[in-house]
Structure formats: C-alpha cells, structure tokens
C-alpha cells in the first residue's frame, strides 16, 4: 500500500486541521446568530460521536436498548479489510450517579488478501461486554464534569483477524467534558487504558495494552442536532502495563448526533488515521495495530 510522502501527509494533516477549525468557527458564528431560547440542555454522553464519550450518566430510572456498531477498514499491505463489531446493549441508570450497560457482541469479518491475516468472510456471536459508569465530578459548580468508566469484555474471536481465541479485556476510561457556550458548544476529553489478555491456538496467554487520549468539540447547530470533530491519539503495547511499544496512531474525523425523538437518538463518527508510527517500519501510519479508517454508529431507544 502506498502510504505517501511524509511532507504530503503533513500537508494533508494541516489542511484537515484548518478545515476543522474553519468548520468550528463557522458553526460558532451560526450558533450565536440563532435564538438562544430554542436550545436546551443536552445529555453529553453521545454528542461527541461515541469514540470520545461525554460525562453524562443518564437519568435515574431510565432504561434503553442501544445497538452500537464499530467498524474498521483498511490494513497495511493491500487487500480488502472490513471488520465490524455490534454490541446489543441494554443500558439503565439505577441512581443519579451511576449507569450500567451490558450486552452480547456480534462481529462480521470480511478479509481478503491482507498480508499476515487469513482470508475470512464470517459473522459470529463473539462475546459479551459490560460497562459501569460513575460520576466523579458534577458539572456544577465545577466547569468540567468527569465520569469514570470500566468496561470488562470477553471475546471468543480476535477483534482484528477473526481467529478463534479466548480474550479478556478491561477498558478503563475517564470521560470529561465542559460546556464552553451554554447548551451550544461542548468540549470532550477522554483518557483510556485498556489491558487485554488473549489465548490463541498455541495455548499461551499474551498480554497487550492500549493507551489513548482524545479531544473533541461538539456544537448544537440546530436544536437536537450536534456536529463536531474528534481527535484521538492511541498507543499500543505488548504487555499489560505498557511493556513494549508496538505502534501509535492519530485519528481525526467528523461526528454527528441527532436526537430524533424524545426517546430516540443516533450518534455517529467516522475517523481516518492521519498519522502513525510502527517501530522498524518506514511509514507514517501504523496499519498493523490500527486500521486506516474506523467508524461508530449508535442508536438509542429509550423505554
């Protein structure tokens, strides 16, 4: 795969950042020009597109069904790579401080001609995930709200290759956000640590870990519609405690949130790896540990 000239890639990165900034400024002006009374409080959890998650933990007693799909496209060396994982989540909020989510996962692998990966075209139920979220800092009087999230996971297939494995992981996140303009402009920030352990064919357990940090902006451009941009920096290691660095990646992309009806919403994000590094590989992307593109789509049906 042609990964391009580093200068050209840098130029593309700068152009995208400029475009994102311009979009931000235009949206700010548009937002300020509208009637402030038409905009009301929004739950921030999904307004950043759901790679970056906001701090809201929902409303006490609220229950919802949420199919959430994450898709990854493109690996190094050519070929066709498209993998998705859908979690059929049940979400409920037992108290004003805590939210619990759980559900099975279904994956689809469509891999052909990718070096280092077996060809595969299969869909399978492949595991179970749960998530516990608790408010650490309320927005008022603090300008920044922070929620801690722990997501234990079990998978019976490797998330990258689709090979049969036994995989346990724990995605730990700090999810923070701030309201920069009341009910209009929001900034989101996530800190991620995800250790995993996997047993493959040879029977050996192998540990790995991922560190991530994100920053996102979201604007409510018209009531119940929020657009924005999300930036992630991810580092991958062999070993559960950042033992051996294997690569890093920067993702950037647009986000979209729409509260379709009082009890129905959608949240979406599409991100492209715009920079990356893999030790020993002369490339400006890491397409071994990470995909070229990734996307998320979540629907929520409250009942």
């Amino acid at each position, binding site marked *: 795969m042609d990964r391009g000239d580093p200068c050209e890639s840098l130029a593309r990165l700068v152009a995208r950042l400029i475009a994102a900034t311009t979009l931000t400024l235009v949206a700010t002006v548009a937002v300020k020009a509208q009637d402030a009374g038409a905009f009301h409080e929004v739950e921030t959890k999904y307004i950043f597109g759901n790679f970056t998650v906001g701090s809201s933990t929902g409303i006490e007693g609220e229950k919802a069904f949420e199919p959430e799909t994450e898709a990854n496209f493109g690996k190094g060396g050519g070929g066709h790579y498209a993998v998705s994982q859908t979690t059929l989540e049940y979400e409920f909020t037992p108290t004003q*401080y805590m939210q619990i989510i759980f559900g099975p996962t279904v994956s689809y692998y469509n891999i052909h001609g990718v070096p280092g990966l077996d060809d595969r075209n299969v869909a399978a139920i492949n595991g179970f995930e749960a998530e516990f979220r608790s408010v650490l800092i309320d927005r008022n009087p603090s300008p920044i709200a922070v929620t801690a999230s722990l997501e234990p996971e079990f998978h019976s297939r490797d998330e990258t290759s689709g090979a049969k494995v036994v995989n346990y992981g724990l995605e730990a996140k700090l999810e923070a956000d701030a309201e920069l303009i009341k009910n209009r402009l929001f900034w989101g920030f996530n800190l991620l640590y995800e250790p995993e352990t996997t047993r493959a064919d040879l029977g050996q357990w192998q*540990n790995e870990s991922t560190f991530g940090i994100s920053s996102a902006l979201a604007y409510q451009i018209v009531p119940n519609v929020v657009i924005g941009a999300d930036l992630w920096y991810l580092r991958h290691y062999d070993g559960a405690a950042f033992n051996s660095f294997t690569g890093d990646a920067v993702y950037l992309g647009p986000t979209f949130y729409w509260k379709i009806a009082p009890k129905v919403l959608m949240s979406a994000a599409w991100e492209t790896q715009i920079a990356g590094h893999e030790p020993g590989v002369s490339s400006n992307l890491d397409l071994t540990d990470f995909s070229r593109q990734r996307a998320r789509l979540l629907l929520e049906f409250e009942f």
Partner: protein
Amino acid sequence: MNLLPRRGVWPVRACLAIALFGVARLASEHANAQQSASVAISVKDHRFQPSQISAPANRPISIKVKNLDAAPMEFESVSLRVEKVIAPGSEGVVNVRALAPGRYEFFDDFHQETRGVLMVE
C-alpha cells in the same frame, strides 16, 4: 510487572469499586433525606405553575409535581438527572440529590414546550 496475575479477578474488583462508589454516594444522600427541602409545582394547560421554583443549596430536594391536565406528563431534567411519569389528575414526588447553587432546567418529556427552571441558592 504483570497486571493480570489472576485472570478475571481484578477487573471484577475494579467494577465493584465503581459500583460501590455510586452506591455510597446514593447512601449518603439517603442519610441526609430527613433534611430534604420540599418544593411544589403543578402543570395545567401544559404549563408549569410557577415556571420557576427555588430551593436551598446542598440539601436533597423533594419536588411535588401535580398534573392538573387531562393527559399524562413526564417530569424530566437532564441536569437534575430525574424523570417521572405522572398520570392525569394525580401527583408525583421527584427526589433530587443535594445540589450546588445554580440554574437547573426541567421539562415535560411528553410535551417538550412545557418547560421550567429550578433555581438553587
């Protein structure tokens, strides 16, 4: 350092810690429940009466909501993190945690134009 010495045990403990933290905060609120402040509000012709209510800061709040309309309403607030469906002609109580001073919006989720504000001082 191996953070996974006994597979499956420490993630469970971490999740329990998160859950206990949330439950502890809830228990703390209930311990102070006898000091809660009461506020009353009604809904008629899909309007809150009064549209602005006030309550003291740093004390749990009980909001008594009387629905005087012929249709059900759902008292809801994003910042208060509460919701309650109230049948026509009946009354419901919404319990809110102790709050810092500020302005908190609420609305009827079945009639989104029905809106009010809780001022905590």
